[in-house]
């Protein structure tokens, strides 16, 4: 709602200026502008490292209605360079809320602009595959985009190197956030992991969300997080049952693939999510491309090409594995987006590798495809059995 807040401006590199009101930290930041059509899950989105350095537009007109809930964060901090809203709720209500989200956003250094016709903005954005934008507290009218670029610094899209860390499944039951216990028991139980001798995965962290880690912990395996730069030998030393390649920000073409290629060659079971899916595809020789229309939302239908079954997924990517580059000798295009037909899941033929363009862990969003994680456990199990058999 309009208020006594100071004016703030959103400028698109294509020239449009939107005047709104300021919230959060003072503004003076520039970055790629993307939008999400999700109706809920703003905390998860804001704490998703995949949004690092971007300006995020939420299509839902009121953000913050259930407040700030620390345990729902998907990482330790907020990542977007700025946040573009119709309105920000300052009187939230939820049993777990510790207060309005604005305080947290300010503390995290995220500037917010409110009062924007976000729908008009998204109608502009959806016609462009990529657009830069800036948030500033001075009236930018009359300045060219080049001038503004000189005045307003670009946000960093690079994530800090994650600290190596090991989470123990045994601790999980004690330390997990309360909502974890609302999740339906996975098909793959901790008991089963114990019985089958699966105990440990390495998470190659390009900017993961906590939810993905929890999915492994609640199935009874420890998770060792290593930065992508850790190198093959360090991962090998950890003796994992499988490798999880996480989601993360940016263009997959900008990442080094050496370690991944080594892991693939070594025959590890690998599970790739979002950026991980794209990186593995590139490591396997497939091409990726920026999508004309990015997928950011919680309502994306994905169809299994064999069974025809459709499941709703949570997505947040702007790149895709080019279908024409997928060699059917190497991988099977198992799932496609039922809207635009783009690649959503690849099952590799000669390696225990399953990769998904979407987020089966939800966080935030539907968990209809959570069984894909169980499927990876089966891959790990088969691999382990074969390895035992071989030895």
């Amino acid at each position, binding site marked *: 709602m309009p208020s006594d807040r100071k004016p703030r401006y959103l400028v698109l590199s294509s020239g449009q200026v939107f005047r709104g009101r300021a919230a959060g930290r003072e503004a003076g930041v520039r970055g790629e502008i993307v939008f999400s059509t999700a109706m809920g899950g703003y905390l998860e989105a804001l704490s998703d490292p995949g949004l690092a350095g971007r300006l995020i537009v939420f299509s839902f007109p009121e953000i913050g209605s259930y407040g700030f809930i620390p345990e729902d964060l998907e990482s330790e901090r907020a990542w977007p360079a700025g946040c573009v809203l119709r309105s920000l709720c300052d009187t939230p209500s939820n049993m777990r809320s510790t207060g309005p989200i604005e305080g947290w956003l300010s503390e995290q250094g995220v500037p917010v602009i409110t009062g*924007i016709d976000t729908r008009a903005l*998204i109608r502009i954005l959806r016609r462009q595959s990529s657009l830069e934008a800036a948030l500033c507290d001075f009236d930018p009218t009359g300045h060219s985009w080049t001038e503004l670029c000189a005045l307003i610094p670009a946000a960093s899209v690079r994530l800090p190197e994650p600290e190596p860390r090991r989470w123990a499944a045994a601790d999980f039951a004690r330390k997990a956030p309360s909502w974890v216990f609302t999740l339906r028991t996975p098909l793959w139980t901790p008991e089963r992991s114990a019985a089958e001798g699966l105990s440990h995965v390495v998470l190659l962290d390009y900017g993961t969300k906590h939810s993905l880690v929890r999915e492994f912990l609640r199935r009874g395996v420890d998770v060792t997080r290593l930065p992508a730069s850790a190198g093959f030998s360090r991962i090998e030393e950890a003796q994992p049952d499988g490798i999880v390649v996480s989601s993360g920000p940016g263009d997959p073409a900008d990442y080094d693939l050496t370690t991944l290629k080594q892991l693939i060659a070594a025959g590890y079971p690998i599970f790739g999510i979002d950026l991980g899916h794209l990186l593995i595809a590139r490591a396997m020789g497939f091409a990726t491309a920026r999508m004309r229309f990015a997928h950011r939302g919680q309502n994306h239908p994905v169809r299994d090409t064999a069974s*025809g079954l459709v499941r709703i997924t949570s997505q947040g990517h702007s790149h895709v594995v080019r279908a024409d580059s997928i060699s059917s000798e190497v991988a099977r295009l198992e799932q496609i987006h039922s809207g635009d037909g783009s690649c959503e899941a690849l099952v590799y033929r000669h390696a225990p590798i399953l990769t998904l363009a979407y987020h089966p862990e939800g966080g935030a*969003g539907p968990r209809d495809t959570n069984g894909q994680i169980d499927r990876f456990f089966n891959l790990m199990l088969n691999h382990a059995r074969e390895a035992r058999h071989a030895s």
Partner: protein
Amino acid sequence: MPRDPAIRRVLVIGSGPIVIGQAAEFDYAGTQCCRALREEGVEIILVNSNPATIMTDQTMADEIYIEPLNIPTLERIIRQTRPDGVLSTLGGQTALTLSMQLAHSGFLTEHGVRLLGARPDTIYKAEDRRGFKDAMAAIGQPTIASAIVESVADALSAAETVCYPVIVRPAFTLGGSGGGIAGDPDELREIARNGLMQSPIHQILIEHCIAGWKEIEFEVVRDRDDNAITVCSMENIDPVGIHTGDSIVIAPSITLADKEYQLLRSAALSIVRYLGVEGGCNVQFALDPESFDYAVIEVNPRVSRSSALASKATGYPIAKIATRIALGYTLDEIPNAVTGETFASFEPTIDYVAVKMPKWPFDKLVYAKKELGTQMKATGEVMAIADSFEAALIKAVQGAEIGLDSLSLPGLEAHSDEELARLISVPTHERLFCLYEALGRGWTIERIHALCRVDRYFLHAIRQLRDFDEALASARAATPVDSPLDSDLYLRGKRYGYLDATLARLSGRTLPPPLPPVYKMVDTCAAEFEATTPYFYRLHLDPASGAENEALIHIGRSRRPRIVVLGSGPIRIGQGIEFDYSSVHAVHALQALGYEVVIINNNPETVSTDFDTADRLYFEPVTWEVVEDIVRLEEAIGVVVACGGQTAIRLTSRLAAAGIPILGSTADSIDMAEDRGRFDALLERLEIPRPVGDTVPDSDTEGALEIARRIGYPVLLRPSYVLGGQNMIIARDDDDIREYLGVIQHYARGGDVLIDQYIRGIELEVDAICDGEDILIPGFMEHIERTGVHSGDSIAICPAPHVDRQIGNLIVETTRSLALGLGSIGLINIQYILHDSRLWVIEVNPRASRTVPFLSKITGIPMIDLAMRVSTGAKLRDLGFGVGLAERPSFVAVKVPVFSYEKLSDVDTQLGPEMKSTGEVMGIGRDLDEALRKALIAAGYPLDRSGRVLLSVTRADHEEAALVARRFHSLGFQLVATPGTAAAIRDLGLPVTEIAKRDPGHAQDRTPYILTELERGDVAWLISTSAHGRDPQRDSVRLRRRAVALGIPCLTSIDTANAVVDSLNSHYNDEATVLVDIAALKQGINAQIERGIWRETH
């Protein structure tokens, strides 16, 4: 999987008359269903007893039966029409229950008919209390501790295990009829007895009460390949304890974090998958606001009121998709008509909020018990779309037609704090306004939350509005005195959805230059895809924020002249689905004439607000500001007010003043009909008689006597206001007037009493179309009940049995001179009294009336179409339906009103001058007896030919009641009557058991007491009239209410009673009536009988 080619002919079962809990949403669903079937080339056989529906239109289906919705009729229709499948899930609970019965009995299998949409085991698991509990237990979904019982004694013992407070829910009832919350055994005894009675299978659920939990609904769609999506979540502002139909609801849910949301969403999907629903399904949850505990409250494996709301709130057409799924398609094969790019498997996402507000009938039925609970009481609802809960709520209030444009309800300030607290914790329809009042008194959010458990989010929002109103009020003191309202405050007000007029009134200031609104599209995808669907809502944004008006893009593509049709708002008593029928027909007629048509309406249940009805839909309250704005935006060449009932008509003078052309009768013509003085002058000039009348303050007994003596007895007396203790009465002498005014003065309302000459005659109703030169009258309708009963509550017959050629000519001539005299163009509705071959005018409405769909259907004359044609300049003579009186049909049609008394405690069921019916049914037959029988059966009268008839009538009715009694007696009924009535019966030499009117109170008096007699079980009919009704404390009212509770048909007019006896007397039965295909009426009934017999025997 593509559609099943074996399904070529489908029977669609409608939901029957509009009653509380089952309203226009099923016409919307049925219409969508028919359209989808048509697009697939499937032949449609439609059955519905309700003529006021779009779905029963000639264009909607191949064969249309407006017949009673019962098993014998459906079996006959199926035998005769040989469908491949029956669609069970689009006609509400009525159709679902009937389909299930047809399936259970083996009839469908025997006749090779498939049940489409829901399998019997799905229906069983969702609908049967035990089946439901077992199913939820099987998939680990929590439910509330409960027990199913079939007696009061078992209920009492079950409650001990389940723990008080308990909720009583009867099995298989509409809108939770007969349920309630019991805090102790005494309350339970009463509620359980009532609940058992209401349940068709005499079964109730005793359930632990979780009042105060959040109530969350999900609409789910699943196909036979097990693909399933959630269309929409909805959060009830009123927590568990108030029926969702009586709750204010927001879509999407707003106080749930992703974790709670996904918890419930996943649960909804697994429930729908386990039940094997193929189509739409509604799942209701209760969620503990303090933990992740939840419980599944209810599952409706069919299209419902909530699915209509979800469809309108998202733009995702659930009924249409459900129909395609029933034909075998999967979600991934069904294109999303909104985007044209995506498929039905895309889960909708929205970039606004929608708020639904119920419309209650308590303004009409002032004695109805207004407390809200598990029994739904609302007749209709409105929806408002905006970008905040506050704005959507304000827009909903503006559109609810309750005389408010903000949350400030005058009168509440008079309540003490204790009273206010009670109104908040024991909610009525006014709770929202009580919350606002309490916040204004400085009560804390926590204090209020403790009283009502309404989530703090909503309380904060109401406080924002209260704070804003206070800021407006303090703007009164701003200086200089004549400066306009501060522009920031104005922008804030517009962001909150306030109308300019409200802002000006509350601030006492002029307004700054008006802020142009923008219109945003409802597109199912939050702008992610280019959408083409012309479905818009109105919003105010700071112009600097990038505000874009998307409607302009659509309007820019328009190449045809544009016309705006005003809708009729929420369904309420007196303004029902009939007006939506007219609005939709007006749209179609004008489109056919080459216009681009725009509709403005805010009722989510209706066909008119389906996005593919008009060229553009503006989902907005029909207020002056909105209408003017849209007319200007569209550069419309005219506005149709004639089809939107009073909602639209009342804007006429403002439209005229603004120079906006009105299609059809002008504002002046409408005013002439409504202004008593102008109308009397017109009648005088035309020499048309009307009953003489005058008004007098209700305190002036002497004045009333003088007027009555001047007019001459008998006279009709009625208060000019609805509130009060009295019905219309017929006064025969001075004593009657003294008594009446004595009673009315007791209520000291300080209003007027209308005193009119009472002409006890036959009431006739005429709808005509006038082109300024000629008129066309499709037919005359005659009311069975004489003067004094509201025309909407009367049984109407067409053609009128008591109108001969001479009278007919008189009616045609009178109607012609009235229509021409008023200068009316288009439709005009006139009510007459016929007495001694003379005609009096009672009322004229120069607009589409309640009877338009009924008459259009039986005469085959497209009345709205013709009205639109003449309104745009055509002449009746050129339109092919002739002028004057249309040819008398060779059959008889009867319209019988249907009431929702069992949903509305304490409402007197006696027919009177105020309309009480919520819907209607039609019967069509070769003669009056047959048509009447069918209509009475369709309306739910059992027409049993044995048992006792209990009579207790007012003095004036003694004689006629005795004559009716004689007719019942000759049919073999035993007569029981209260002393006065009994004496009159004995005078005719008939045996009668006399019973006491009042509880004798002491044991030695052996006279049976009427209420005890009523409960004995074998009373087939109660005939009860009284001079003074309404007050629920009166014996006569209590008697009639008891009959409602016991399900005993109660006749409150001697005329209705005579009609019933006629029906009982006739030789017709369920098997021997003719089934009439309305779509083939032109062939005549006899041809159809032959065809039917041929089909049934081959």
